[in-house]
């Protein structure tokens, strides 16, 4: 028998995709480390500065504020989005008539562009001509400052009872909270669809057995559905967290000028790195360092997911 020659075929088929991924993914990721260790502007590389950017970052008040704002965003968006999307999905899964109609209605925000939607929500939250204040007025409430309000939501709530909360306990500003509302709204349809797919994977026989045992619908949900859906919950939790860490467009479009909201209370980490890299200072080196910190955060979340995933799978 003739000895088979080395088969180049598979590599030729992989080559086009490989070149693109190598040049435009792998190289930039390696490059981001290098850039963060040098002085770097649009004109090119400067002196080697080692870990200086990271030292600056630790002392940078703006960095910590943007991290805190991002944290607020995640803490509010993720649980509410999970709860609502599971509720939607369970409701949708329990009906037959108009099921696909409702599913499509919930899904429209997912396919529409974040830019257009941000513009619409910015106008909704406009103090004079927005729908939000118009609705408040109709039900007899005072208009709010929404995207222009730098005071924290807890601060605003407690102020109604005459309690003056210190600003560190004020929570996210109402401006950031407006962004939170919009972000939840935008992501709800996608999460609902993922949940719905998860629910449809639960064998119907389980429910039939539960019916025979005489378990009510609510008991069925907590004793059966909630446990069987936990891998999906886990996936939705991680995905929503990771994407919420990367929120940019709605901040860029809805708050400002100056972007970043009143007193910088809507400045999130990705906007911060955008501003450092492409704003006035044009400090690509510092921006790269910030991006790497974001990368470490998201990577640890992903690794945590991988570790915990084994525990939630039955």
């Amino acid at each position, binding site marked *: 028998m003739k000895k088979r020659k080395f088969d180049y*075929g*598979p*590599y030729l*088929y*992989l080559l086009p*995709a*490989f070149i*693109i*991924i190598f040049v*435009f*993914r*792998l*190289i*930039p*990721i390696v*490059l*981001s480390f290098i*850039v963060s260790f040098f002085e*770097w502007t649009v004109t090119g590389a400067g002196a080697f500065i080692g870990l200086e950017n990271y030292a600056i970052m630790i002392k940078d008040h703006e960095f910590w504020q943007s991290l805190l704002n991002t944290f607020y965003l995640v803490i509010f968006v993720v649980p509410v989005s999970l709860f609502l999307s599971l509720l*939607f999905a369970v*409701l*949708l899964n329990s*009906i037959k008539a108009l099921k*696909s109609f*409702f*599913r499509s*209605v*919930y*899904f*429209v925000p997912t*396919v*529409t*562009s974040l*830019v*257009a*939607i941000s*513009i*619409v929500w*910015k*106008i*909704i939250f406009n103090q*004079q*001509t927005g*729908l939000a204040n*118009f609705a408040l007025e109709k039900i007899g409430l005072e208009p709010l400052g929404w995207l222009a309000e730098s005071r924290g939501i807890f601060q605003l709530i407690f102020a109604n009872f005459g309690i003056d909360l210190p600003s560190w306990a004020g929570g996210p500003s109402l401006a950031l909270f407006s962004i939170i509302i919009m972000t939840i*709204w935008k992501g709800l349809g996608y999460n609902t*669809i*993922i949940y719905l*797919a998860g629910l449809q994977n639960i064998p119907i026989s389980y429910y039939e057995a539960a019916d025979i045992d005489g378990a009510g*619908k609510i008991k069925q949900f907590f004793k059966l559905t909630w446990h069987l859906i936990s891998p*999906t919950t886990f996936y939705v939790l991680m*995905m929503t967290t*990771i994407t919420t860490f*990367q929120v940019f467009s709605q901040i860029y*479009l809805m708050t400002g000028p100056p972007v970043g909201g009143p007193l910088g209370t809507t400045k999130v980490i990705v906007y911060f*790195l955008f501003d450092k890299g492409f704003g006035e200072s044009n400090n*690509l080196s510092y921006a790269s360092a910030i*991006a790497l910190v*974001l*990368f470490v955060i998201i990577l640890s979340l992903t690794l945590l997911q991988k570790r915990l995933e084994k525990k939630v799978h039955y």
Partner: protein
Amino acid sequence: MNAGKIITYFLLILCGLVMVIPFFWMLTTSVKSQLEVNKGNVGFSPVEEYDVYREDGKEYYITVVKEVGDSSYVHLFNEEMKMIRSYAKVANQNIHHEKKFKLHWENFSNAFVKVPFGRYFLNTIFVSCSVVLGVMITGSLAAYAFATMKFKGQNFLFYLFISMMMVPQPVYLIPSYVLLNHLGWVDTYYALIIPWIANIFTIFLLRQQFKTIPRDLFDAAEIDGCGRFRILWKIVLPLSKSVISTAAIFGFIGSWNSFMWPLIMTDSPKLRVLQVGLSYFSQEASTQTSLLMAASTFSILPLVVLFLIAQKQIIASFASSGLKE
């Protein structure tokens, strides 16, 4: 129908309204005159209340500034709501308060020509179509290799690809800019298209599909003298039509809606894609809410129409992004 069903439908409708109201309000605001919006008439009704001034068979829209005795100081506006005279003194008897149902469709054409949206649309269509075409070619070739061939380093390359997929865009944005700048591609179509013509998720999706095709089919074709590429072209791709269109739609939507990348990688107005153009327009015309709403409406329209045509497939393709190995 029992009580449970009624509550279920009630909640579903309520949630549905929350999802739809922003769009509905966008539509109703987009056909309002700016004057009406600025007056605080920002509900859903397109009925306008305004004062007109009539004299000698001519009609002007007015806003009353101050009443003095039996006459008033008013601003006069023409049909297009352009002010033609300010602080004119007119007799009160010629001022009429009227209600009118009027839709200002001209907002759409006004917004469309105010900045070159036509150009933005063409740019977006060109970029999105090129990206989808590229993604399909590189994706099906790579997926074919991963799914049907055995070669050294196969697992390593596959996991390398998958791990690249985990890296979020903001992380490689800055160095990508540095790289593209070095290549001289910043502010060119290359920057918008080339880095995106390979998509790891598409490779992954197609690989899963190609693996389901029975090996016997390949063996039979090989015996008939079919080469690898002919097998891909004549057998594998035709059998994978639905997954391919799913991936194509997914890629198209992603490319159409991408914003941060083109915002950073392009600068000159003639290269602006729709999302970037819309974003600049929203800064330029920040006080003209009805024009902004009109622009938002026509820029989401193509995708909403695409969605209405292919709802099932689009929802399925998004759901499959949540698939696990």
